[in-house]
């Protein structure tokens, strides 16, 4: 309750979390070195950390992160924009939504990786293809969540606006979109890790740089340490991006928690 109590608690949580992580890393390191685990297929923390700092020093790391983040940014933007717009349209047009629903579900169950040849044909080997692949993954999560949000809108709010003389557009901008906000953000939060996976999958399919390329390179050079080091980087990127979305969420939804 008191702010000092809260601070003490969160400190305790953080310390425990650190201890847990450190202990796990130590166990990993020790068992790896003791030969309990096969190092060539599992590496160990100090090797991974060494690899990371080497990449960071050489500057390779930044180039690859840059490529991946760039793809993710545009893919995320495109996918979520399309997802939101499509859901806003479909959510209010019930017949349209119901008619299209099985088709959307059907497309949703196709892994984008399976459509690789078409992505190559239509969007090439460059950044565009990756952006579209990421967008197609982000699209569904954002679409499905936004759709739920639009359908969830309290009809009474809409009615009360209509009695005040609001037209459809006003209802959209003043009621439906703000109301769907929390759902859109949930979708975006779920989409962050998926966007990372999408970027990696796309880069593993065809690339000349990016974290996925780095993973593939390391893996064909039989450098498991490199693979895991790349994954650590992605883990950090993922956490940072999720935190970013959460911050945006907290800001936009301050009316809920205030």
């Amino acid at each position, binding site marked *: 309750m008191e702010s000092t109590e809260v601070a003490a608690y969160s400190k305790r949580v953080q310390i425990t979390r650190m201890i847990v992580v450190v202990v796990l890393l130590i166990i990993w390191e020790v068992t790896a070195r003791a030969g309990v685990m096969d190092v060539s297929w599992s590496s160990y923390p100090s090797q991974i950390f060494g690899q990371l700092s080497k990449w960071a020093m050489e500057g390779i790391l930044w180039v690859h992160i840059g490529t991946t983040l760039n793809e993710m940014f545009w893919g995320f933007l495109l996918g979520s924009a399309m997802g939101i717009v499509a859901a806003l349209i479909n959510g209010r047009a019930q017949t349209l939504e119901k008619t299209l629903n099985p088709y959307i579900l059907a497309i949703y169950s196709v892994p984008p990786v399976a459509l690789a040849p078409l992505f190559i044909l239509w969007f090439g080997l460059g950044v565009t293809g990756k952006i579209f692949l990421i967008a197609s993954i982000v699209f569904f999560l954002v679409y499905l969540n936004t759709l739920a949000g639009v359908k969830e809108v*309290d009809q*009474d*709010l809409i*009615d*009360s*606006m*209509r*009695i*005040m*003389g*609001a037209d459809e557009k*006003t209802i959209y901008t*003043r*009621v439906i979109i*703000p*109301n769907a*906000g929390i759902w859109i953000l949930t979708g975006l939060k779920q989409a962050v890790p998926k966007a990372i996976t999408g970027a990696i999958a796309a880069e593993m399919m065809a690339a000349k740089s990016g974290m996925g390329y780095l993973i593939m390179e390391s893996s064909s050079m039989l450098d498991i340490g490199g693979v895991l080091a790349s994954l650590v980087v992605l883990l950090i990127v993922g956490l940072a991006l999720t935190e970013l979305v959460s911050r945006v969420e907290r800001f936009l939804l*301050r*009316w*809920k928690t*205030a």
Partner: protein
Amino acid sequence: MALQKVNLKIDKGEFVSFVGPSGCGKSTLLNMIAGLIQPSEGSLLYEGEPVAGINQKVGYMTQKDTLLPWRTTEANISVPLEIRKISNAEKKEKVMRYIDMVNLRGFENHYPMQLSGGMRKRAALARTLIYDPDTILMDEPFGALDAQLKLVMQDELLRIWRETQKTIIFVTHDLGEAINLSDRVVVFGAKPGRIRMIKKIDLPRSRDVFKIRFHPHYGEIYEELWDVLEQDVGKGEVV
């Protein structure tokens, strides 16, 4: 079937209350006047015209809270003005006037979540008033308030009604409230709702809601209405 053969005429500028057991169709009737649902039989005229589609001439304070939760008090009250595309300066000034009217000064920047039940009702009232409709429909607007605050709000409502000459249709469960406020009280019977009685309240205007219950006629009127209501006790409680 929520309503059964209802006949009723309400004059301009009149203050009419609806009372009756839960589920008898009071809210349904308000919804019809607002044009949110259509009667399946019979006719409902507003200013001589049948109500078809949303009736934008009325203001409606529904039983449920319909403030937009993501807007502050001020932004909520200004919604009707935004819809009419009133200029910002004029808007600001007018909203402030109504905020004062409902005693919410100091809470302009609070979100609905941060307001108590009574404050929310007052904000909704301000939003309905600023929209300046000819007729105001109010569905149990003061149900959530404590006894004292209720009287304060009734007092304010009567003042506003006097000043603006609006028609008010008011739904309540509180017989005393209906008597305090109304020109006429319409008593509905249990479901399927029908009108049991239309009682003219011949207490003097303007009334002081804090004192009116000591008026010699008050008890009589209360008794009379109560007797009619009592016939339906318990019957209304069907899902």
